[in-house]
Every structure is written in structure tokens, then in C-alpha cells.
């Protein structure tokens, strides 16, 4: 029964969707203070390479490697964020674009560490490592009646799902807290925010570093799921792709980039004919969104309306219950 239900193909696609959701969240956080980064592919690469290198060369456990990858990317984010914060708008975007390219060129040339353009292969795979670990404890896939590759896919998917949900709830909660309000205020009007007592430098660096950290985290996960990375995985095109998740889905609320990542990743998988024109469609999406709906498909207003609708509904049900009670009473 279980064996027939679990298909590694669908789980694989879902796993990539989840990674893209994490990437979408990473750009969303940076954008939530009104900063546009074209360097997220660079942060993703730093996370991926750091984790791959420490797990292969120093035999660190996977979880340590992944966390280290995220942290190194986050620290780089602070390093890049602090000085570039003096830059506004397009200047920041261009500076981060430059950063991303420098990182890629570094991966290519620092052969001793990164093996250059050939890339790093045989990176420990999350699922395979786990299954090996489980086997040592005496648990194998046959015990629940599935094949080991099914178990691997399920484990990878579940881990990613849990991680993604944790991340989403982290940032949803942050959004609703004092920090999130500061982010939103800075995005809407920087000088007004500062006049209201918000230390904009601190919060902008915080957002930039959080974005970099999450991108690095996604990169590290990516490395341990494909088991192979090379510099060309973290090029300018990747940065644009990450940006599109937020531009398309919406950058005002976290549901936006999540929706964007789900839709845009599954689209070519569901419609193979679309695949041919994928990038042209991306281009059209960017232009059309800017012209007709610059805030993305899902925005504050939509969320607000949904909330009201639900409130009304709740109200209605309460009213109905009340009236029923009355009926019974009478």
C-alpha cells in the first residue's frame, strides 16, 4: 500500500519546489525593507560551497555543514550589507549584482578549494546519509514495506517540508512583531520610519543578513540534494529566477513568494510544452507584472480582504448559532 503511494519522482519535484520556496522567502525578507538584491545567487552559492567543502574535507556532520553554510552566507551578508547600505535603490541592486558575479568568478578560480569549473561532486546526500544512519540503528526500508530509494525521497521531502514550515512560521511571526513592523515601515517610507525612531541601518542590515542567511541555507540544502554543484549553478540567471518568485507572487506578504515559487517551479513540470518558452515567459512576466501589478499577485489588500471575509463568515456563523439557540429557546 505504502509502496505504491510513494513515488520518488513527485517527491523530487516537491523537494525542488520547497527549496525554491526557501529561496523565495530569502528574497522576500530583503525586499521587505525595500532593498533589491541581485546577489542572492551568490549567497546561495556561498552556502552550498561552504557546506559541501566542510562535509567532504573535514567530515563534519551534514547538519553542522548546512548550518555553517547558512551562517557563513549570513556573515557575508552583514559584510556586504554594512558598507553598501549607504547605497540606495538601483545602486544597491547593481552593487549586489557585482557581488554575485565576483563570488562566481571566485568559485571558478579558487581551484584548491572549489575544484573550479569542474565543480564538486559526491557531496553527501541528505537522504542517503540518513538511510545509512538508520540502517546502523537497525531500521531499513523493507520494515515498512518500501524500497530504500522511496525511503530516501520521503525523508528528504519530509525534512525539507518541516524546515520550510519552520522558516515560514518564523518569518510570519517576525512579520507580526515589532521587527516586522519596522521592516514594513522602512519599506514604505524610509525617512518617516527613521523619524518615528526606527534605527534604519540596523534593520536594513538585519534584513539583508537574514535574506543572505536563508539563501545560503537553501544553497546548502540544494548541494546536499543534488550531490553536485558547480559555479554555473549560481550565475546571474539564478539570481533573476529567485527574484521572479517574489516579483510574480508578490513581495508584500510572505504568501507571495511562496506562491510564486510553487507556481513557477511546477509550471514547466506540468506543462512540458511551456518548458521551451520558459525564459521568454519569465521575461514577459517581469514586464507585465511591473506594468499592471508591481506589488505581485498576492498583496496586502488581498490578504486584508480575505481576512475580512473570514471575519464576516465567522460573524455569520456566530449569528446563525445565536439565532438557532433562540429558536431552540423559543
Amino acid at each position, binding site marked *: 500500500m505504502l509502496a505504491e503511494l510513494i513515488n520518488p519522482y513527485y517527491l523530487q519535484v516537491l523537494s525542488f519546489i520547497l527549496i525554491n520556496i526557501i529561496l523565495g522567502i530569502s528574497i522576500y525578507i530583503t525586499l521587505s525593507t525595500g532593498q533589491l538584491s541581485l546577489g542572492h545567487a551568490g549567497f546561495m552559492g556561498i552556502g552550498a560551497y561552504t557546506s559541501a567543502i566542510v562535509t567532504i574535507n573535514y567530515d563534519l556532520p551534514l547538519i553542522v555543514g548546512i548550518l555553517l553554510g547558512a551562517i557563513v552566507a549570513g556573515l557575508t551578508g552583514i559584510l556586504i550589507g554594512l558598507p553598501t547600505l549607504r*547605497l540606495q535603490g538601483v545602486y544597491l541592486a547593481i552593487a549586489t549584482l557585482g557581488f554575485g558575479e565576483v563570488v562566481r568568478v571566485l568559485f571558478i578560480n579558487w581551484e584548491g578549494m572549489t575544484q573550479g569549473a569542474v565543480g564538486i561532486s559526491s557531496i553527501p546526500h541528505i537522504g542517503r546519509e540518513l538511510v545509512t544512519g538508520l540502517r546502523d540503528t537497525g531500521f531499513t526500508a523493507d520494515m515498512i514495506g518500501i524500497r530504500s530509494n522511496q525511503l530516501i525521497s520521503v525523508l528528504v521531502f519530509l525534512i525539507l517540508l518541516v524546515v520550510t514550515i519552520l522558516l515560514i512560521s518564523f518569518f510570519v511571526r517576525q512579520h507580526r512583531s515589532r521587527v516586522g513592523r519596522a521592516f514594513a515601515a522602512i519599506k514604505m517610507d524610509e525617512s518617516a520610519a527613521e523619524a518615528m525612531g526606527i534605527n534604519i541601518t540596523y534593520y536594513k542590515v538585519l534584513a539583508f543578513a537574514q535574506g543572505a542567511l536563508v539563501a545560503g541555507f537553501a544553497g546548502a540544502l540544494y548541494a546536499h540534494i543534488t550531490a553536485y554543484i558547480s559555479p554555473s549553478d549560481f550565475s546571474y540567471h539564478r539570481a533573476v529566477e529567485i527574484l521572479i518568485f517574489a516579483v510574480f507572487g508578490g513581495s508584500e506578504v510572505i504568501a507571495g513568494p511562496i506562491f510564486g515559487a510553487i507556481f513557477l517551479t511546477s509550471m514547466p513540470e506540468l506543462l512540458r510544452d511551456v518548458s521551451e518558452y520558459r525564459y521568454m515567459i519569465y521575461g514577459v512576466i517581469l514586464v507585465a507584472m511591473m506594468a499592471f501589478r508591481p506589488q505581485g499577485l498576492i498583496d496586502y489588500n488581498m490578504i486584508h480582504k480575505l481576512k475580512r471575509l473570514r471575519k464576516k463568515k465567522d460573524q455569520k456563523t456566530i449569528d446563525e448559532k445565536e439565532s438557532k439557540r433562540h429558536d431552540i429557546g423559543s
Partner: protein
Amino acid sequence: MLLEQLINGLTLGSIYAIVALGYTLVFGVLGIINMAHGEIFMFGAFMGVVVTHTLQLPLALAFLVAIAVTAMLGLFLELIALRPLRGKKGVSHLAPLISTIGVSIFLENLAHHFFGAGNRPFNTSFSQLSIQIGSVTIYAVQLVIFAIAILLMISLSFWLSKTKAGKALRACAENLEAASLLGVNTKKMIMLTVIIASVIGGIAGVLVGMAFNSVTPQMGLSMGLKGLAIIILGGMGSVRGAMVGGLILGLSETMIVVFGESGYRDAIAFIAIIIILLVRPQGLFGQPVTEARR
């Protein structure tokens, strides 16, 4: 050898400078970075391939076709990607950047479909012409590129400072609203700017095809990023900055090959971007942003 390398650097630098002129013009007037400029440049180059190689027609015609096609692309860029965003409430200043990135991706992949991913040859007998001075060979193409770069810079400076249309354009650059109050047809001026910038890109495309015999859909991205680096280096909106910045980048890319690590050649431009933005954000020839504009 150093002399030859100097010539190589100047040739490359001149091309960079021409590409950067297009960026700087659009930024100067509209305050927008046109991320699609590199792809328009690439289309100019492909027009050269189509005319000289596929249709076997003369080189002069290639320039004409490239100018016509890139002018059209500029027009579409303005009408589709830029005008709808202008003056709209709630549109951030990043919107045009994202929108032109969209155009650039679209054009790059359109070129893939039309022309294939491979390299296209660009055969003209003109590119074989050369003069021998001592042990140094100078190609006619190199001289032409250098001449066109200088010519474009001088005529653009002249046009901007001396002609009526140019003055109107500068008025737009100073303040769009004020210019429109003074009776300048800003819509027309903006369109003119974008078209002129695109045409300059198209000309650069044909020149690159002539000089290096190498035209691919990917060339727009790498050239575009270099052009971007140059206007940041030279100062956004500065014609002189674009020229000097272009030459500096061309020469330093050549020199890094001469003296050492050709592997880091591509990184120079981006390292330059980061350093200049941190040390002197207005660039070498740019005006510092006054406090009052905050």
C-alpha cells in the same frame, strides 16, 4: 608586444565606451538603468550577421539595418516596459529596473530561437584590411572603432550642449516636470533618448561583430554587465565618464592578461563596481547627490 596590447586594450575599451554611452544617456535623462541595453546591442550584432553573412549584402547596409532594428527595439522598450510605469502611483523606483531585466531575458531567448545558440560568423572583407607599422599590425576595423567612439562622444556632447533638441533633453534630465512646464514635449524627448541609446548599442553590436567575428545570444549579457560597470565607474549620466570608464576597463582587462591572471579578467569590472560604489558612489565624473535631494 606592449604596444600591440595597448592597441588591443584601446579597441576593447572603445567598444565598451560606446556601449556605456547608451546606458549613460538613458540614465542621465530618465534616471533608469536599462538592463536590456546589452540585449539590444546583441540584436544589432545579429543584424550584421544576417545582412553580411546570410544575405551576403554589403557592410554599409548592415549598419543601416542594425540601426533600424535597434531603433524599433528601443521604441518597443519605451512603449511596453518603461512608459506604463512612468508617473504611476505606488510604483517604486526599482520597477523599471525589474521591467528591463524582463525585456533582457525575453530578447536573449528570442535570439536563441531565431538564431540558435551557436556562434555566427560575420564575414566581411573589410575586417581583413590592415596596416603594418614595424612589427605591429593595426587593423582598419580597430581604427574605425576608435574613430566612431570618439565621433559619437564628441557629437553627443555637442548635440547635448549646443542644439535645441539637446538642450531640451538636458532640461528633461534636470527635472522632468519643470521641463514639461517649460513647454518641452517630454514624452517625445524620452522616446528619442531611448531610441538614440538603442541605436548606439546597435552600432556597437555591428562593430563588435566586425572586430571579433563572434556573435552569440549570450554576448548581450556579458557586454551589458560590463557597460553597467563602466557607467558606475565613470559616473552615471556622464558622457565623459562613459568614455574614460570604457577605456579604463578595456585597458585594465587587457593588462591583467599581460601581467598575470587572465582567470580574473571578468571579475575586474565587478570588483570595480563594488569599490567605486563604496569609495566614490557618484563615480569618477558624476555629480555628488546633494543633501537637499534626500
